[in-house]
Structures are given as structure tokens and as C-alpha cells.
């Protein structure tokens, strides 16, 4: 049997799978630096603290097109203890921006869930900004798998 041909098939199958995720056709992927810059702007130059903010994401995404993520900030959402915004970034997508949640006292809790696209295995990052300007960060690596023989 022709091993080279099979190797080539394997590679082309990978290429097909990659292009078919709908989110990776153009070459320029965001670098981690782009994400860092977004975080610096969001945090007003300060380094965000850890704790209080929890980002939940699967360790392995069955398909990068639909990855469930949740954020929760430990906050009373009353008086001075209010989360104003939580920004979600993905440091390996063509553009690191994913979404920004805006909360209010009427939210009752600083928690939100959505579903997002990941072009490849990468970090999903959440940054929260409190009313007093304090910021928190959490980060999870999500492995994006490539499906069967056709992707």
C-alpha cells in the first residue's frame, strides 16, 4: 500500500476539518499579546487579581463551534459591592474579543452563560471590573478536538 498517499490523505483531512469549523478560514490569528492589551485597557493598567471570579469552560470541547462557558463573580450586587462588567477573550481566535457582559444591581447576581466559538485549542480568559475599579481575572485552557475522518 502507498503510505505516502495515506499520509497525504490524513493531512488533507486535517486541513478540511480546520477550514470547516467556520471560524478559521483567514490566516491571521490573534496573539496572546492582543488579549493582554485588551486586559490592560479594561483594567486601567492595573494587574487584575485572582479569586472572586470563576470562569467555567470544558477542558475538552467536542466541537469548537459551540463551546459552553459561564462566569460567576462572588458579589452581593448591592451597594458598593457591584460587578459592572465581565469581558470574555479567547487568545487564539482570529480576534480575541468574544463578549462583554454588563451587570447592574438589578442583575441580582453577577453570573452569565453563553456558547462560543474556538478556532483551535487556546485560553479563554474572563476579566471582571467592580464598581470600585478593582479587577479580577480567570483563565481556562480549552482543548479543541478534531473530529472523525472527515472532521
Amino acid at each position, binding site marked *: 500500500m502507498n503510505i505516502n498517499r495515506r499520509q497525504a490523505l490524513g493531512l488533507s483531512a486535517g486541513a478540511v476539518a480546520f477550514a470547516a469549523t*467556520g*471560524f*478559521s*478560514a*483567514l490566516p491571521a490569528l490573534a496573539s496572546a499579546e492582543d488579549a493582554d492589551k485588551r486586559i490592560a485597557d479594561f483594567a486601567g493598567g492595573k494587574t487584575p487579581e485572582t479569586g472572586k471570579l470563576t470562569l467555567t469552560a470544558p477542558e475538552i470541547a467536542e466541537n469548537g*463551534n*459551540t*463551546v459552553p462557558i*459561564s462566569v460567576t463573580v462572588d458579589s452581593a*450586587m448591592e451597594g458598593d459591592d457591584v460587578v459592572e462588567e465581565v469581558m470574555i477573550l*479567547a487568545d487564539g*481566535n*482570529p*480576534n480575541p*474579543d*468574544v*463578549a*462583554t*457582559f*454588563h*451587570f*447592574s*444591581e*438589578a*442583575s*441580582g*447576581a453577577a*453570573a*452569565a*452563560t*453563553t*456558547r*462560543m*466559538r*474556538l478556532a483551535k485549542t487556546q485560553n479563554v480568559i474572563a476579566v471582571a471590573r467592580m464598581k470600585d475599579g478593582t479587577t479580577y481575572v480567570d483563565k481556562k485552557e480549552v482543548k479543541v478536538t478534531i473530529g472523525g475522518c472527515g472532521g
Partner: protein
Amino acid sequence: MATPKPRVKLPKSASAGEVITIKTLISHTMESGQRKDSEGKVIPRQIINKFSCEFNGATVFSCDIEPAISANPYFEFSARVKESGTFKFTWVDDDGSVYEDEQTIEVK
């Protein structure tokens, strides 16, 4: 694409001051602007770029949305309800279309 259709789920009633969970889903392809058609041309971006939820006229929760949000966008969040009233949900499309839904809640 058929006209996007919102779905919203929240309790019909709650006690005063209770924090309730609201789930929303809307049909939309969320064309990222990153894909090419069969002729190699980039398919222009068309996404829902903003979602918001108001209760009796005051904003409860809103979200700025980028193309990295999946097709048929789903948002789940909370609201603290102090009185009976009406939730209004709004999704804004890149083409300027606005999709809306309303749900009432009774606070006992």
C-alpha cells in the same frame, strides 16, 4: 435566513427580592465574516451584536457580542425582582434589524 425567532424562559412568578434565572435563545447564523463561500469569496459578517434585558424600563443585563459567539446565540443570566412587571428582551442585528420579546412576572 428565516426571520430570527427569540425564545425566553423565566418563572411566571417569584417572591419579592428573589433572584431568578433567565434563559434566552435566538435563531441566527452569526455569520462571522471569517468564512469563505465555495468561490473563495469572504462571506460578509452578519451577527447579532447587542443583547439587552430591561425590567419595567430599567436595564438589568446587557451584552456586547462579537463574531466569536456561536450561531443561535444563548444567554443565561439573573435578575432580582422586587415587583411585578414586564421584562423586555432586545437583540440588535448588524443589518439594523431589532428582534424583541416580552415576558411578564408576578411578584407575590
